[in-house]
């Protein structure tokens, strides 16, 4: 293990706190306090992942991100106090692999770091193998034949009902399913006040596959309409 992570933030205390959190998880941490330093340090081949703040002196995070991308292909997670949707979209479109808002949740941070590293190091093989019948959606990989769902390459343990729901949603990413339809297709019964039942199961699935179940990235509620599996690149 001992993968090296570059943490860039102009606030050294935040860098310190992140470093402690990550080091406890067994990672090695390099520290930088602005974009220029990040550009120098990212050349270290040991660096496997970069956590970078947006608002920094000398060279801001997004500009640094673009220039790092020119040199190295490695996962970059943007860490920003800007929590608007537009900020997230901007960051992701600039080439960030993930976006974490400040104040961050340490567990979520480590989970996302781990997830990115896993995808970067091990999942590449899966794509290379070209197993085309697999359904890949971001961190999730679903095998419709064996009904196995993998998150970051790790099999997720699901109950039969959960598996049915995941099967429905993974096969139709982006489509919105009303609770009644999910209930009918999963339970094969007429739906009557099924909202709670469906919601309970979805919440359980989320806890198994989402990095932060309270702010899910994959299974989302479309309020007033239904539920859907968010499509990720």
């Amino acid at each position, binding site marked *: 293990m001992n993968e090296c992570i570059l943490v860039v933030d102009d*606030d050294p*205390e*935040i860098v310190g*706190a*992140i470093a*402690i*959190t990550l080091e*406890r998880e067994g990672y090695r941490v390099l520290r930088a306090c602005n974009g220029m330093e990040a550009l120098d340090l990212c050349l270290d081949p040991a660096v496997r992942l970069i956590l970078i703040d947006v*608002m920094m002196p000398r060279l801001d995070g997004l500009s640094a991100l673009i220039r790092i991308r020119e040199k190295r292909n490695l996962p970059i997670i943007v860490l920003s*106090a*800007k*929590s*608007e*949707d*537009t900020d997230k979209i901007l960051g992701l479109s600039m080439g960030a692999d993930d976006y974490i808002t*400040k*104040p*961050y949740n*340490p567990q979520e941070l480590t989970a996302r770091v781990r997830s990115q590293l896993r995808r970067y190091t091990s999942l590449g093989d899966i794509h290379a193998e070209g197993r085309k019948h697999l359904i890949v959606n971001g961190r999730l990989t679903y095998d419709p034949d064996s009904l196995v769902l993998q998150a970051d390459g790790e099999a997720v343990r699901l109950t039969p009902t959960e598996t049915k729901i995941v099967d429905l949603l993974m096969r139709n990413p982006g489509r919105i399913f*009303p*609770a009644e339809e999910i209930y009918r297709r999963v339970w094969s019964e007429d739906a009557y006040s099924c*909202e*709670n039942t*469906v*919601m*309970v199961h979805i919440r359980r699935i989320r806890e198994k596959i989402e990095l932060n179940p309270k702010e899910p990235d994959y299974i989302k*509620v*479309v*309020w*007033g*309409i*239904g539920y859907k599996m968010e499509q990720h690149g």
Partner: protein
Amino acid sequence: MDTKWNSMDRAPEEPLEQAAEPIQDEVKEGDSVPKRGRHVKAVIAFLAFVLGVSLVLGSLGAMAGRLIAQRGSPEWQVSDWQETEAFRAEVADYLQDFLSLGAGEHLNWYGTNVVQEGGYGSARWYGVTYSDAIEADSDFSSSSPVPSDKDLYYRNDKSVLYRVTNAKKDIYYSNVDDSQALSIYNKLPEGYNFMLAFLHGKVTIVKDGQTLDVYGDGIYDADSDWFVPGYENFPAGEGVEDVSVYMAVRETPLQYFTQNGVQTARMYWVYERLQEARAFYFRQAVLLGVGVLFLLLWLALRREKRLADQKLASWTLHIWTEPRLLAVAACLLWMTAGNPAASELAWASRYDIFENWDYWASLVGRYLLLLPVSNIPALLGLVWVLWLIHNDHRYNPREKHRSLWRLISIRLPRYTFQKRMNWLNRAALVLICVFPAAGVLLTISLGLSPQHWLFWLMAAFPVIAAAALLLILRKHAALAQDIGLLSGQVEAIRNGDLSTPLDLPEDADLRQTAEALNDIQAGLHTALAEQTRSERMKVELVSNVSHDLKTPLTSILSYAELLRQEPLEGAAADYARIIDEKAQRLRSMVQDVFDISKAAADQLPVRLERLDLAKLLRQTLADMDDPIQASHLTFKIDLPDAPVEIVADGRRLYRVFQNLIQNALQYALEGSRVHLTLTTEAGKAAASLRNVSREELPQGVDFTARFVRGDASRTDGGSGLGLSIASSFTEACGGEFRVETVADLFTAVVTFPLAD
């Protein structure tokens, strides 16, 4: 006072009187000589101009007046009075009277069979008309039937010697001795040069030894000189043919007394009038010449005169407009005095205008033609008054002129609009009702008939009233237009047009109001721009502040978390927990404050879509099932099975109901029921959440205001922004948020219009 003044090398205000000072002064002050010289020249030029124009205009006018008034050929053409028309008319008159004597009866040639075309124009001299003559003659004949009375009249006449006989010789009248018997063959007495003989119905005239051609082609017409019998179409009457008349006229006529003691001099007057006329024309010609000389002088000094003009203009500036107009009117009125055509017009007014309109028209034309030249002082007065006004306008700017009207129009706007309108309306009432009524009453009470000129003056009352009414109506129309523009502007401002001001004409009654409205509009514009700017700044500030808060908060949260992972003992563990909890709360508050400020500034991004409100409520309840189950509250849910479709942003609306349920969970009385119902009515969906508050609810508090909580303390969880966020998010999505409290019953209602 602009370039005109500046072009002068000296200030025009310096009084002109200095120029009139004696020349010695100028010699003493050497360097001021050019100035003084200039002043003198200016005065001279000005006087030359005034005198020249007055003399030329006066003399020409006087001559023109005399020519127009006199009728016939100009008098200056004849030097011999015996060659005037007046003389020939007198001779004809004399002859008529002498023939009357000879015939022993009263003769009137105007009654004979003459084709009477020219008689009208050439009959008489002294402005007495043709009709007058008939009347006078008939009067004469009735009062003195005996023609021999005429003999008494002519007996003492030294200007005309006569001898009247007839064939029977029983009639003989003469004012000369027989020794000096008048005959066409005898030599005329000393001093007499004109001889007329009427023999056998024919007239023979010898003047200065020359026999004149009396009858011309023998037909009497308008061009014939002598109105005496003997023409083919004007033969002598039967009783007259055998009368012989000899009359001799003195070269220089004299005045005399008749037998009745009346001083008379008919021939003398003809003579004297010609002399007077010749003297008059000569005098006017001299004056004209002098005037032309003055004008030439003025032309030579034309530049200098400008100085005088300017000085004069600076004096006349102080005369108000109304006196000027009065002066013009007075001059015009004065002009009508002394018009010789006036008496003719007055006399002709006895005849019906419509039957004799051509005669009338000729008289009126004559009157108007004579108007400018019949009263020369009035003409000169008018010319100079007008010139002064013109001069004033040439050198003084318009806005410097003062007038009563201007004063009133400046003063009037100081009064309120309704007061001005009241005055106008009252004036209109007086003009329209009282004025014509007064005219009618006056006409009736004075008993004026249409023949009287005052009757026509009375007609002026209704005419003035009508004119005034027209003016007032026009004013009202303009006012209506202005009011229309004004109300349109008010409407435009209400609709948000804050950039186009209303521009009413300078003299509009509502000008001030329009300006006031423009001020309000501009003020509103500024205030609105200011408000928008400050709102944006506020949002930016809050956005920046929340960002700035998040950075240290991140550190606090990170280290609090790390601290909790450390093996702490006793109180330290508690402290670490408390720090962590409060930091978490601070975090949610920062996010809430950020959201709410964005919503308040209408900058909250919303993604509106069609959704089922009932489903959204169910989802929300399912989502919050855990805390609901954990609470000691019973939720009574009443949602329709059918979809309740509205258009809103689902994520924001979820936040609204999440906050409401959280609010209920936090503040509802333990063990009580919470009612969540959704109803549709009148095109609206209303979701209401009712709960009984644990604490007594303060009355008269706006629960949607920021940081308001039922218990007024802030020791428990929650940012105090829950309801405020619910309210502003609902409104951002296009719904209505309402909170009602009755005693301890708390009701929150979210209303949305149903989607079509």
